[in-house]
């Protein structure tokens, strides 16, 4: 209908007991500058709160930042709750400190991509743009 694709809406959140928010704020800024609407949901969120935010904000993507080591507990919980809420089409990104060996497990569970330290910001932006124009979200 319209010539331009709808603006992507991305929820960025930190789950669990982890207050390291420098990285997620840098990502937020990069996505904003790439023309996306970034909903910054904040720190210390429960998986339930993240999923409620994704639902109410009608987000296309959710980016979870974890530097606490609790990703193998919290990420599956978010994925489960998203499915339960009927939000399986929402793409999930994970960033932060994730050991190499856990990455394939997270991808198997349904995470679209894991971005570790040192990832160029353009890589995150172009991943979201490509996946979204390819019909995801």
């Amino acid at each position, binding site marked *: *209908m*319209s*010539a*331009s694709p*709808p*603006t992507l*809406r991305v929820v960025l959140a930190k789950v669990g007991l982890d207050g390291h928010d420098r990285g997620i704020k840098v990502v*937020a*800024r990069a*996505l*904003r*500058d*790439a*023309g*996306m*609407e*970034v*909903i*910054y*949901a*904040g720190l210390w*969120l*429960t998986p*339930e*709160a993240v*999923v*409620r*935010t994704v*639902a*109410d*904000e*009608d987000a296309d993507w959710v980016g979870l930042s974890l530097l606490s080591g609790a990703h193998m507990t919290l990420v599956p919980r978010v994925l489960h709750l998203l499915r339960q*809420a*009927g*939000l399986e089409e929402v793409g999930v990104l994970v960033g932060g400190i994730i050991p190499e060996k856990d990455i394939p497990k997270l991808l198997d569970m349904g995470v679209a991509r894991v971005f570790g330290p040192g990832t160029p910001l353009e890589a995150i932006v172009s991943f979201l743009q490509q996946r979204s124009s390819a019909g995801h979200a």
Partner: protein
Amino acid sequence: MLDVLLKRFRAGDRLALARLLSLVSRGRQVDDILRALGPSRRPSRVVAVTGSGGVGKSTLIGKLIEVIRGGGQTVAVLACDPQSPLSGGALLGDRFRMPARPDDGVYIRSLAAAAGRGAVADHLGLMVQLLEAFGFDVVLIETAGAGQGDTSVRELADVVVLLLQPQTGDDLQWEKAGLLEVADLVVIHKADLPGAENVEAQVRATLELSAARAVPVLRASAKDGRGIDELWAAVRACPPRRPPAAERGLGLLRSAQECLAFAFDRARAADDPRLKELLTSYEKGILTPRQAADQLLRLLATTAP
């Protein structure tokens, strides 16, 4: 497609509400949705919270949500933050300062407000209607950080609450036309900081000069919780405002402006050759701004929706 969505919406499906709000915020199927909704059967109390950036609107709304829920009412929040004029992107960081615990009686939606639209997102009126129809008792509108002339939220709300803070401006600020004139309630926020009494006295002195209506001035602090219950009581006590004759039609004008802006964005995105030609003539000075504006109006009026 829309029919299914509306059916789910009427059955109380929050995801359908979220999707409808997205359609409306993007200016899509607005007329169809408006027609399907019909007149609101259960009008909510619509309260706008406005003030400059950093004055504490989101944090105070977070506290108000608790008070409203404590009173057994449900509440929806439309929280506006600025959209980048450069990239079109936005960082929407209001809900970060509001309660995060999921509660079926609370709905928070973050919205990007384009520059020059009075610090509120487009089509906000219809979004309020959707939330009313969904059954929320109270709808809170948070403007983006508002400047002195950002008064258009007045057309959307029953009560406009203006937040000021200590240590801002001298008493001449309060004489200026604009935001202070449209406030139904003034809150000196961050009242835990020094200087709050001073600002309160200045604002009171100014407001007392206009005998037309009594505007309550309160002190509150989201930090230590003082004045929050009193604020909500004052909001509830505000008499419904009837638009004076001078404002008649302003709502319609605003809708027309939104339609125009949307048609312009669409024509530009579609690389409409007539628009390109017009813009070139305008930029080269072949047309005066007034002539170009007239032509633009005519061009957009003939663009198919």
